[in-house]
């Protein structure tokens, strides 16, 4: 695969490039790579990883309950809850009537009664009918009740586009969720992350919106159940998926894999890109952003959601705020357009593709002051 866009772009020509930066782009340090030899490591799809995480959460916490439209008998339209009703019973895993506000409102009451609800909204676009309960109730009940009524609700939302689905089945709501005080928001980029982030989210005492990149459900990857994070700790904060020294690509969900592809291509032109998987979209790991961009001095943030008032603005501003002096160019955003998520082939025009990301990188690398 040739990369005409970055050909001739001279990142090395930058005399102020931080020469102390690790030049490890070729050894591609992926988060999970180091435990690849571990016997416990298994290859599975993200769908399987999520299913396994839920299975374990149900087994470990008798107060955990899973429900939503078609979650029970069918196992979900994406089969994420496949087999869980048969195994854990219709009390723990059940179908609800078709009403998202009802599902989320009911979650509040279950949480008040001491349960850990794990509701599902069938598709991103159908979270809108539940926004009132999410924003005004779930996100605020701990506060309103002065900490006496925590809301340990893990809301699973198959999210983002890329599967040529009908209208409202390809939305990216992270900017909306991240703006709501009282919510935490997370999105996994691969099966390993999916397993660990879901298990972690579903054991937290606060509400977490868990955004599953549906276009990655069937992609396989190594999952090391025993090692959540290279740090050895909980899967908090962002994660460097590939190291580089010329530019940082910040992404989440399905865009992480695409950014890794881009980094691969750019490497052919001698451009070493660091790929940061933001993972937590709220709270954002500002320290990780700063650490990476202080090294690379350039950043591009990539997301599927429309540009204006998207989470990319927040990420860019956090980077600018913490790295203003070292930044060689303004942070670039490569995102969906300010248009309704389109149908069919137009999806390829809408979602940041490799070319558009490369163009964004090019703009940043070629940026000249004055």
């Amino acid at each position: 695969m040739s990369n005409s866009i970055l050909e001739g772009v001279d990142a090395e020509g930058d005399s102020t490039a931080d020469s102390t930066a690790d030049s490890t782009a070729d050894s591609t340090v992926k988060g999970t790579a180091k435990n690849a030899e571990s016997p416990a490591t298994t290859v599975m799809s993200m769908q399987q990883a999520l299913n396994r995480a839920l299975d374990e959460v149900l087994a470990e916490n008798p107060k955990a309950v899973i429900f939503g439209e078609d979650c029970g008998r069918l196992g979900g339209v994406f089969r994420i809850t496949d087999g869980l009703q048969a195994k854990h019973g219709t009390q723990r895993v059940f179908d609800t009537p078709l009403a998202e506000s009802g599902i989320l409102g009911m979650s509040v009451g279950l949480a008040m009664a001491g349960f850990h609800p794990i509701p599902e909204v069938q598709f991103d676009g159908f979270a809108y009918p539940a926004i009132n309960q999410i924003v005004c109730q779930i996100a605020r009940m701990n506060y309103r009740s002065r900490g006496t009524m925590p809301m340990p609700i893990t809301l699973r939302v198959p999210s983002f586009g890329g599967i040529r689905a009908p209208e409202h089945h390809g939305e990216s709501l992270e900017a909306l969720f991240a703006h709501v005080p009282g919510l935490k928001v997370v999105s996994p980029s691969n099966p390993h992350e999916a397993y660990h982030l879901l298990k972690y989210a579903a054991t937290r005492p606060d509400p977490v919106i868990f955004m599953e990149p549906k276009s990655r459900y069937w992609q396989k990857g190594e999952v090391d159940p025993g090692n959540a994070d290279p740090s050895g700790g909980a899967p908090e904060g962002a994660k460097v998926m590939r190291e580089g020294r010329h530019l940082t690509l910040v992404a989440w969900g399905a865009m992480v894999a695409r950014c890794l592809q881009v980094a691969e291509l750019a490497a052919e032109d001698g451009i070493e890109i660091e790929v940061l998987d933001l993972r937590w979209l709220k709270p954002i790991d500002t320290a990780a952003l700063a650490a990476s961009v202080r090294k690379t001095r350039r950043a591009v943030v990539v997301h599927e959601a429309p540009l204006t008032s998207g989470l990319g603005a927040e990420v860019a501003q956090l980077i600018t705020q913490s790295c203003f002096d070292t930044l060689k160019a303004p942070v670039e955003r490569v995102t969906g357009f300010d248009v309704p998520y389109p149908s069919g082939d137009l999806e390829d025009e809408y979602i940041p593709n490799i070319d558009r990301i490369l163009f964004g990188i090019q703009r940043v690398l070629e940026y000249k002051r004055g």
Partner: protein
Amino acid sequence: MDTLPLAVTGDDAGPLTPAQLRELYSLMVAVRHLDTSAIAWQRQGIIPGYAPELGQEAAQVGSGYAVDTTRDFVFPTYREMGVARTMGVDMVGYMSTHKATWHGGLYDPVESRLAPIQAVVAGSVLHAVGWAHGQTLEQKDGVALTYFGDGASSQGDVHEAMNFAAVMKAPVVFFVQNNGWAISVPTDRQVAGGSVAARAAGYGMPALQIDGNDVVAVVEATRRAFGHARSGNGPVLIEAMTYRRGPHSTSDDPGRYRSLDEERDGAGADPLERLKQRLLADGAADEAFFADALAAAKAEEEQIRTGIQALGSRPGTEMFDLVFQETTPALQAQAANWREESEHV
């Protein structure tokens, strides 16, 4: 259940003529054939997906048949192909939504009196109420016909719509196709009390629960409902009891939640076959007629398929140009950037 007063219903009154019954049969065959063909199209890769309406032909054709496209307006879900066909909507434009050409379909909703295809369950029920109230405000006599399913009846918007319509006496016909299923969830786990029609009384609204597989019953009920609403008596609810004989969509696997035996028992008699038997019994049609109708349906399907296959993708510029009536500088800048980057590659 029938709580609708037997009022005069205007010019539409009187039993269906043999010619009308034959017309209904032709429509149902066309719909059946296009519907089953669309599944084949999906298997052949002509379209990426489809939501079949197998078994609901009587409910759709019968209700669509009562519409007066010179004054009424119809609000479909994603499964009203039979209504569209009956109303005379351009079917290539309609089916293009299933080719993922354009979400709402390429047909002109204003011209055809059929609102764009709606993917939000219960999303357009309130639109019908607003449109209908507009008729009241302008002292016009159009009626809004809105479709939704047993699953959709659980949505808050449906309740708000019924209450608004009844408070404002808006000329709306709420047409529920209770096809027994919302994807994998059967009606008894969905509709408390068991009947959507039973909800109407709580709003002081008349309702009809009808055999949705009997096209004659559907036409007559819908005509009565239209007559009632058109005469300024407010909304009516019709619950047509039918059965979703196929999968929810081409990506659904009903074997995971219902057995073939259950399907056979639930489905009952085929609505198309029922009409055929009636026509034969009445002596209103013979085998030649049925053969002709099928041949016409096949020819029509071929034409639509050809149209669908010929359809290219929409140009990317439409993504930007159709957002607003008055575009914005920011959007134009994005369009320019998109054009530049896609031309470069």
